[in-house]
């Protein structure tokens, strides 16, 4: 028999994943994360380094200075960004690079977009995609994502109300997956080492089951996100989004619970995962839209059809 369906990472994809992980952990490890927390603004040096490493140009053709890879590779890279909580309008800048917005691919320009009624990093952005007129700043729940609210426009449909770009939804889902996978690891590390009642808390079945639930959600979401990266099908992307949001949001909550009182402190990183997961879930637009689209599919309605 010849080679069969290999819904597994290729050797090149593994190497890319490991390379991006090493780069991001080296350049934006825990210490850098905590420094960023105390330093307002976006680190433009880091942004340019990401550009030089090809992070924003992964799917741009080589002839145009890009890396010339596919959506699966971009998804793997964004998964790693989600793991380390890399700040900045990463998804918007990546999509801008694809759309040949000058400076986006190289990291010279910071590009943001109106997504889900919000604009991330508006004051740092060189380019804004979508109609951000009248945007007002809000006190962002995520200390590493400054946010502006875009006014509703008196009941008229605006960009903010339209379904999100499927590619943005997919890359966001990849970030959620990375975050979910990281919070599972953090919970397990803590449960192995933190002792109460004379034993590691991970020896208690109730804690074990929280951790097992996290892995179960990560494993299922990973299959959905990677499959959507291969097919780029809007329905697969909608499904991936629902599963990845669930894995990230529920995972961060359970991770916080496993950490006990420490999880409730500012010093812990767990709240940063939870808050960013909230921001990302909002970025992909109303959950209802994804659910309705998948419901319509059951009746054979084309994607995007309004029920």
């Amino acid at each position: 028999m010849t080679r069969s369906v290999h819904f597994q990472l290729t050797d090149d994809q593994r190497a890319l994943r490991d390379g991006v992980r090493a780069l991001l952990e080296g350049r934006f490890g825990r210490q850098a994360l905590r420094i960023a927390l105390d330093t307002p603004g976006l680190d433009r040096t880091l942004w340019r380094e990401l550009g030089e490493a090809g992070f924003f140009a992964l799917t741009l053709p080589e002839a145009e200075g890009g890396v010339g890879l596919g959506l699966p590779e971009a998804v793997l890279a964004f998964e790693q960004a989600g793991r380390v909580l890399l700040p900045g309008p990463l998804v918007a800048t990546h999509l801008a690079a694809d759309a040949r917005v000058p400076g986006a691919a190289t990291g010279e320009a910071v590009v943001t977009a109106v997504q889900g009624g919000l604009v991330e990093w508006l004051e740092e952005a060189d380019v804004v995609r979508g109609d951000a007129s009248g945007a007002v700043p809000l006190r962002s729940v995520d200390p590493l994502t400054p946010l502006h609210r875009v006014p509703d426009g008196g009941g008229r449909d605006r960009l903010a109300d339209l379904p999100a770009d499927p590619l943005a939804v997919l890359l966001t889902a990849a970030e959620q997956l990375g975050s979910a996978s990281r919070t599972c690891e953090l919970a397990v590390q803590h449960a192995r080492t933190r002792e109460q009642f004379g034993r590691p808390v991970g020896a208690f079945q109730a804690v074990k089951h929280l951790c097992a639930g996290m892995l179960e959600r990560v494993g299922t979401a990973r299959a959905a996100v990677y499959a959507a990266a291969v097919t780029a099908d809007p329905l697969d992307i909608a499904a991936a989004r629902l599963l990845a949001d669930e894995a990230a949001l529920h995972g961060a909550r359970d991770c916080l619970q496993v950490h006990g009182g420490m999880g409730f402190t500012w010093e812990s990183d767990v709240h940063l995962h939870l808050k960013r997961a909230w921001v990302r879930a909002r970025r992909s637009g109303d959950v209802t839209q994804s659910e309705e689209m998948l419901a319509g599919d059951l009746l054979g309605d084309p994607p995007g059809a309004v029920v």
Partner: protein
Amino acid sequence: MDLTYTPEEEEFRARLREWLAGVLPTLPPKPPPEDWPARRAYDLGWQRMLYDAGYAGLHWPVDAGGRGATPTQHLIFLEETERAGAPYVGAGFVGLLHAGPTIAAEGTAEQRARWLPPILRGEQVWCQGFSEPDAGSDLAALRTRARRDGDHYVVSGSKIWTSHAEVADWCELLVRTDPSAPKHRGITWLAMPMDAPGITVRPLKTLAGSAEFAEVFLDEVRVPVGHRVGAENDGWRVTMVTLSFERGTAFVGEVVSCRRVLGELAREARKNGRWDDPALRRRLGRLNAEFRALWRLTQWNVSEAERSGGVPGAGGSVFKLRYSHARQELYDTAADILGPEALDLDRPWVLDRLSSLSYTIAAGTSQIQRNIVAERILGLPKGR
């Protein structure tokens, strides 16, 4: 990462489809669920058709009489047979998916030659004597005793949750041969002929009202020593080979059928007006996402098994946890759509809802699965 099939695989699929389209209309009508001999005849008849067409033991190794197909071909087979509405393995389940693969992996040449061909040809039915009233999730606590008497084992005890016991020819039986050894080290795997004196089979009525299982009582049943597969007291290891098969592709057909049911539910909801409720639509949309993901997870696990040479990885436990819950949610949603008719046993999906309740219990409860995931995959310490 690739989700396309090779030309060989597409050809395999096309040939299978063509064969199914020709052969399924010739099948006799399905027997009533309570008529066990008729069900045996029907299931074995289907197996014989598969055998004659070269599809029996597709994923079994060639030297065990199988076709040596890749996991992906096996996946295609399960997907296409379910799509076409072909019969399920039924009475052949234990022989084809548990006992057979165990004998293929651990049996002597003589044992393989004796037991495997009748399984593949659809001539013999096997049942499984593993669980006991006091050994459920903690299977290794089993107490059915086997003492050696010359060239026989003399077996006494009781087994439970044995499907097809009434019509089985053989039982793959786990017995305790060394009560003084640690519990995993005193177990032996035996093939017990179901017509041996001392065996009593009593149907076990489940909450669904039917007798899908049986209790099997063993009173001084004599089993020849030559019916032992693997070494004495090595039965736990021998059994684990079998159980790993169960977590591989056992649910492929079911995921395909759940996705079909989901479409039927949506159409029923539109017909009876429940579709107008956005909360219900959202629930159906989430189930669509869930079963799409479970299908992708299946493909992922199969590819992983292919890469690692057939050994199912950690994905099996994750899949089982997620799928068993999703199936229950599917039929709870069906009940929501049916409204008052959800209490009518003659309506479709109502019995499926009842039987879905076993999924988080059978083959290791979800709670035990989570312990396994936490300890073996995540490396958390053992404890209570």
